[in-house]
């Protein structure tokens, strides 16, 4: 068997495809969009967490409650300021993120052991305020508990009486697993890269070939149809791999630059982990271009083909959505479904678990089989007169 034509066709499609600058830029932008998004999202989250460590509390009516104000000032990372006289307007205008308001009767109510009212003004739609607000609310609760306990002790009652429950929450998730749930989105972007990376070549080398009228001269060459389609598939596979590699590299760089420890997660994308991730996800780069080539072969024009292949994003995105609601990895049947399987392997690997070699191999064989079926189907299409001449 002479395999040379496959390589000849793949080389031509690649050099033709990579000369189309605009589609290369589109591919790179889509490949890098995900990592950038992850970077900004996590960066935002960590900076918010660190921001809450040092808070400034504007207090209106600062003179009415020296006890509370002194107590607050003694807490680490807290600065108390004299607040605006019109707290509501100040928060609305954005002059203050939050304002603690103490009423004039505070001291009187406090001395008589009555609940003294304090008001907390804030705007919950402002994302950056939330962690600071949580910190302040936590501080006020602690003040409540401390004073309450002291009052009970003075009256000869053990403070424990007021606490029927002591709650001990033990989180069994390792910090790596917590990181993995946070980084699930990385996998979604890798899958999207597999879709967008090979799309250009998959559509241009099939529907584009029909649209230009170059399919007919190509098929007159003494090369079996399956080899012609395989060459086009191989080119799309390489292009999809480049897209996935670019995405993975960008994610790698982004994660190294993020202070993830501040989020309470320890995460390290080691080299063996990256290799394992590539091994688990690469079947996608074999399978998805084959489906794209088959779908595009029906299309009479490049544009029509793109509208078909873009539809592929929907089921794949849906799978990503499912897996955020259901824990994918502990259902064995899910590892039998393509894309879902790769997704669950990826989640395992990010969580520091190692999927079994058998499962990885099975996933790979399944993907190759699917690719072969769609290449064969496309080759059959390329033998029908309606596809070759129907324009």
């Amino acid at each position: 068997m002479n395999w040379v034509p496959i390589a000849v066709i793949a080389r031509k499609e690649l050099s033709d495809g990579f000369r189309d600058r605009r589609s290369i830029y589109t591919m790179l932008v889509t490949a890098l969009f995900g990592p950038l998004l992850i970077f900004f999202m996590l960066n935002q989250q960590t900076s918010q967490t660190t921001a809450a460590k040092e808070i400034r509390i504007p207090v209106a009516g600062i003179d009415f409650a020296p006890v509370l104000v002194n107590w607050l000032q003694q807490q680490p990372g807290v600065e108390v300021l004299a607040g605006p006289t019109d707290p509501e307007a100040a928060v609305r205008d954005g002059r203050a993120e939050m304002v603690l308001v103490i009423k004039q009767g505070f001291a009187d109510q406090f001395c008589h052991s009555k609940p003294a009212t304090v008001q907390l003004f804030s705007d919950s739609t402002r994302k950056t305020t939330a962690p600071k607000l949580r910190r302040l609310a936590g501080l006020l609760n602690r003040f409540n508990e401390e004073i309450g306990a002291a009052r009970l002790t003075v009256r000869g009652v053990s403070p424990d009486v007021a606490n029927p429950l002591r709650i001990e929450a033990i989180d069994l998730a390792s910090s790596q697993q917590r990181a993995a749930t946070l980084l699930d989105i990385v996998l979604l972007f890798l899958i999207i890269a597999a879709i967008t990376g090979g799309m250009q070549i998959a559509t241009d080398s099939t529907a584009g070939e029909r649209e230009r009228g170059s399919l007919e001269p190509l098929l007159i060459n003494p090369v079996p149809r399956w080899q012609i389609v395989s060459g086009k598939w191989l080119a799309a596979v390489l292009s999809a791999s480049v897209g996935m590699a670019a995405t993975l590299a960008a994610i790698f760089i982004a994660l190294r630059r993020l202070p993830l420890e501040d989020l309470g997660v320890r995460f390290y994308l080691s080299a063996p982990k990256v290799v394992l991730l590539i091994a688990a996800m690469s079947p996608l780069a074999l399978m998805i271009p084959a489906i794209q080539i088959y779908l595009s072969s029906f299309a009479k024009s490049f544009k029509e083909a793109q509208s078909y292949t873009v539809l592929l994003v929907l089921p794949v995105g849906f799978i990503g959505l499912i897996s955020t609601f259901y824990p994918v990895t502990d259902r064995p049947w899910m590892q039998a479904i393509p894309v879902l399987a790769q997704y669950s392997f990826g989640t395992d690997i990010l969580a520091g678990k190692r999927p079994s070699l058998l499962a990885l191999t099975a996933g790979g064989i399944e993907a190759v089989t699917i690719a072969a079926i769609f290449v064969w189907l496309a080759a059959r299409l390329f033998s029908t007169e309606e596809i070759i001449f129907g324009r």
Partner: protein
Amino acid sequence: MIRVENLCKRFGTKQALQGVTFSASDGTVTGLLGPNGAGKTTSLRMIYGLMKPDDGSITVDGCDVASDPQSVQARLGVLPDQSGLYGRLTPREHIRYFGNLHGLTGLDLERHIEKWIDNLDLKSIADRPVAGFSHGERTKVALSRALVHEPQNILLDEPTNGLDVMSTRAVRAVIRNLRAEGRCVLFSSHVMQEVSALCDRIFVIASGQVLAQGTPKELLELTGRTTLEDAFVSLVGPEAGASNGELS
């Protein structure tokens, strides 16, 4: 040597070919002459194996298209009715691509590429992407791409259609040269001047049937006319002739 026997093909309700028989010998330029829709392109597509006849048989140098299409394709050089080039590739890359697909490699291939770039006067544009090329330049690129593997049998579907004078002359020179080399050239046309200028043997086709065959002189004698155009009109009938504006 191409032999076509009793080709039949139906598209939906329309009988496109109803028993077409013709042959083209080595060292000869054979013309398929007929109005648009006569079945010329369909016949050629069946010879190069992309369309299957409902009935009938085709052999090229003794190889049967139905049973061994790839051996037939290896012996053919084809210029289809659409040049179908890749806008971002250069003429040299087009020729190399098809040469590779025919199994040519290395120095041997480069020699063939140079030869056809010279033959069709493509030197000045050989390394420019074909996107901005004129119709004549595109046809010349498609022609050299089809001939790079030196096929014994050459099929040309309306090769000079819409070409300017210089390009037409270049294509005609190539065809005459192929005949001098002893190759079998079969080409279709609805343009009378082309056929009379080039063909040794003519098959007149209309409505999926061969109406007459012979040398240009024999056709004149057969119909008793003095010009090939009159002979053609008397053969295909006034309606078919009249429906074909390009004939004059």
